[in-house]
C-alpha cells in the first residue's frame, strides 16, 4: 500500500544569509535529490518556499514581514513523496541537502487521505 508523505525541510536559523554561489550549489543538490526520488517514481509534488514577500500573522493579528520573529527556525520548502511506510519516506529524506547544515531537520509527515479514515 503506497502512502504519501510530506518531507518538510526545516532550517534551524533562517536568518543566515548564503552567498549566491552557495545558493546555486544547494539548488543543484536539491534538484539532484528530487531527481533521484522521481527516478524511483516516488515523487508526487513539491515546492520551495522563498522568503521574499513572506508574512507572519500573529495571535493578535499583527502582520510582520518575514518568517523570523522570536523564533529563527523556519521552513524552507517541502516535497510530497510516495512510500510504503514512514520509514521508507525517512530513507528518502536522508538524501536531502538541507541536512548538511547542523541543526537542520527534515520532518516526515503522512498525508491524510480523503477516504474517511482520518
Amino acid at each position, binding site marked *: 500500500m503506497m502512502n504519501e508523505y510530506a518531507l518538510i525541510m526545516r532550517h534551524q536559523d533562517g536568518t543566515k544569509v548564503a552567498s549566491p554561489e552557495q545558493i546555486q550549489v544547494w539548488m*543543484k543538490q536539491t*534538484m539532484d535529490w528530487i*531527481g533521484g526520488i*522521481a*527516478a524511483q*517514481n516516488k*515523487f508526487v509534488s513539491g515546492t520551495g518556499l522563498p522568503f521574499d514577500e513572506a508574512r507572519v500573522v500573529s495571535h493578535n493579528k499583527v502582520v510582520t514581514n518575514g518568517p523570523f520573529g522570536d523564533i529563527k527556525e523556519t521552513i524552507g520548502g517541502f516535497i510530497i513523496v510516495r512510500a510504503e511506510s514512514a520509514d521508507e519516506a525517512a530513507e528518502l529524506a536522508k538524501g536531502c541537502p538541507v541536512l548538511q547544515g547542523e541543526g537542520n531537520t527534515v520532518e516526515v509527515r503522512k498525508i491524510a487521505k480523503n477516504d474517511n479514515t482520518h
Partner: protein
Amino acid sequence: MQQQELIPHLFRTEFGRITAVLCKLFGFENINVAEDITSETFLAALDTWPYKGIPENPQAWLYTVAKNKAKNSLTRKQLFDQKISLAVQAEYPTEDVMEIDLTDRNIHDSQLQMLFAVCHPSIPPEAQVGLALRILCGFGIDEIAHAFLSNKETINKRLFRAKEKLRAARVKMEFPPENELKARLQPVLTTIYLLFNEGYYSETENEILRKDLCDEAMRLLKMLIDYPLTNKPEVNALFALMCFQASRFAARKDKNGEIVLYEDQEESLWDKELITIGALHLNMAAQGSYLSKYHLEASIAYWHTIKADTPEKWENILHLYNHLLVIEYSPVAALNRTYALARVKGNEAAIIEAEKLNLTNNPFYHTLLGELYKDINTLKAKEHLLNALRLAKTDTDKKTIYAKLEAL
C-alpha cells in the same frame, strides 16, 4: 508520349488529402464513404495510367476523378436518404452541392481537422496512431501491420473499432474551440510522438518504411506549426526533438543494417541541416512560461548533437532529466538520468542510485548496471549483462548486450 515520372508517394500523400476533404464534406460519421471514394479514385488511375500514360498533372487528374465520384455518390439516392443529405443540404443549399473544394487551403484545414478528429481522447493512443497512419498518411493496412509487427487482421479490427467509437462519440470535422485547444492538442502531440518513435525505434527491417513513419510524423507536426492557433511552444519543442533525433538517422545503422551505438557513430553522417532547423525551432519553443516534457526532451536531444564529452554537457543533461522525471516518470528517463549521473558523479555514486530504481524486470536496467560495474566488479557486471540478455526482447538489443559481454 513521354512517360512522366510518378511522384514518389503520390498516392499515399493524396490519400490523406482527398479523404480529409471528402470526410469534411460528408461528415466524420461517413468516413468509410470518403475512404472508399478515394480508393476507387486510385483504382481508376490504375485502370488508365498504365495504358494511356501518366497525366501531365497527376494530382489534378486524381482530384477531378475524386470530385466526380463524390458527386455521383452524393446524388445516389440511398446516400441522400441518409444523414448526409440533410447535413450537406444545410451547408450547401442547392446547386453548390457539386462544388467540392480541393484547394490547398481547404486540404490543409481538412487535414488538420482530421488530425484532431482521429486523435480524440475517446480512443486509445495506439488506435489513434493507427488511424492517423491510415487516414492522414495513407499507409496501407499491410504497411501498418508491418510497422507494428502485427497482422492485417488485428490492425483492421483495431481501426474498425476505433472508427465505431469515434462515430459513437459524435466526433466532428472541426477545430476544437479555442478554450479546449490546449487540452485537445495534448493527445495530438502524443500520437505524433508515438508515430515518430514507431519509426525511429521500430524493429521492422524495412528501413524505408521506418524513415517514412518519421517523415510523416514531422509533416503532421509541421502542419500544426503552420497554423497560427496551434503554433505553440511545445509543438515547436517536439519538432525540434524530432529534428535532432532524425539527424542521426543515417549514422544509426551500418551497411549490414546493424544498430551503431551513439558513441560509435560517425559524426560526419549526422545531418547538420536538420540540427540547425531543430535549434531554430527549439529557440521558437522558448516562449511563455509553460515548460513541457517536449522542451526538456528536445534540450536533452540538443546536447546529444554535440559529440564532445564535457562536464558541462553531462551536468546539463542530468539537470534536464531531473526536471523531466519530476514532470513525468518513465523507466527510460529514470535509467538515462542514472547514466548521466554516472557521468557527473562517477559510477559508484550512480550504482547506489541505480539499485534503488526497482526496475529489475527491465533489460535496460541490467545493461546499465552491467556498464556501471564494468570497471568496478567484473563478476557483478557479467551477472547483470546475463540478466539483460535473458530479458531482452529484440535481436538488436541482444546483439548489443552480447557485444558488451564479450568486451568484459
